[in-house]
C-alpha cells in the first residue's frame, strides 16, 4: 500500500540516487509502521515546474510549487503524529540524498482505508491488525 511518487525535474537524479532514495523511503516507512518492506512502492516521475498530480488515495489533486515533490499514499488509521514522522523522514532523506536544500522539497501523504486495496491477492489489514500469518505471506521484495 505505501505508494510514494516522487516528482523530479528531468535528468535531475541518477539511477543510484533514485535507488538510494527508494531504499531510504523503505527504511523510513518500515521503521515507523508495520508494513513489510516489499510493500513499499516508490516511483519517480519527471516533470517541469509547478503543477498538480492526481491524489492516488483521495478524490482530488495534490498541488506543488517546489521543484521536488513527494506524493504519498498510505493506509488510513494511523495517528497524525505517526503520519507526520513518516513524511518528515521522507523529506529529510530525499533532500540529503538528492543533494538539494530542504526548501526545494515538499510533500503530502493522503490515506485510504486498507480494506479498499488488494495486494498479493489479499485484502489489506488495517494498521495495527496485521497478523503474523499476514507478515509471513508478504512477498519478498522484487
Amino acid at each position, binding site marked *: 500500500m505505501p505508494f510514494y511518487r516522487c516528482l523530479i525535474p528531468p535528468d535531475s537524479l541518477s539511477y543510484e540516487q533514485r535507488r538510494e532514495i527508494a531504499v531510504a523511503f*523503505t527504511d523510513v516507512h518500515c521503521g515507523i509502521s508495520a508494513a*513489510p518492506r516489499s510493500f*513499499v512502492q516508490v*516511483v519517480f516521475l519527471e516533470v517541469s515546474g509547478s503543477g498538480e498530480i492526481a491524489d492516488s488515495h483521495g478524490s482530488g489533486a495534490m498541488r506543488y510549487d517546489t521543484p521536488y515533490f513527494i506524493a504519498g499514499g498510505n493506509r488510513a488509521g494511523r495517528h497524525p503524529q505517526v503520519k507526520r514522522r513518516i513524511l518528515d523522514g521522507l523529506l529529510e532523506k530525499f533532500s540529503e540524498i538528492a543533494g538539494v536544500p530542504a526548501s526545494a522539497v515538499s510533500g503530502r501523504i493522503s490515506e*485510504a482505508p486498507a480494506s479498499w*486495496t488488494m*495486494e498479493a491477492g489479499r*485484502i489489506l489489514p488495517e494498521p495495527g491488525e496485521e497478523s503474523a500469518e499476514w507478515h509471513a505471506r508478504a512477498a519478498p*521484495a522484487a
Partner: protein
Amino acid sequence: MIDFECTVQEGCVGERLRPRLAQAIEAACSEVLGAESGPVSVSWVEARKGFGFRGGEPSTTSLVRGRIPDGCSRETRGRLLHALERSWRRITGAAADEVIVSARDRGWTG
C-alpha cells in the same frame, strides 16, 4: 463515473495488452457494480526503467487504482477487487505479488 489509473513498469505491460486490460476493467466494474454505475475510463502511467522500485529494488509491480461511486459495501468492493486482480493476472501473466488493486470512493478526500 468510474476511473482507473494504472501505473505500470516499462517493459512489464506492453501497449498491446492495454486495450484488453481496459476492457477487462470495464467488464469487471459492470458485472460487480452494475452498468448504471456509469462509464469507465482507464488511463496509464508508465514508470521508465530504473524509475520504479519496490522495497528498494527494481519493481515489476503494476498499481491499478480506481475511483468508484460512494456507498459500496465491503463485500461488493471485495468482489470487485478480486475480479480486477484475476483479470489483470490472466491477461498479463503477472504473479499475485506483481499487482496491487484498489477501488476508493469517489467522495473520499484522502
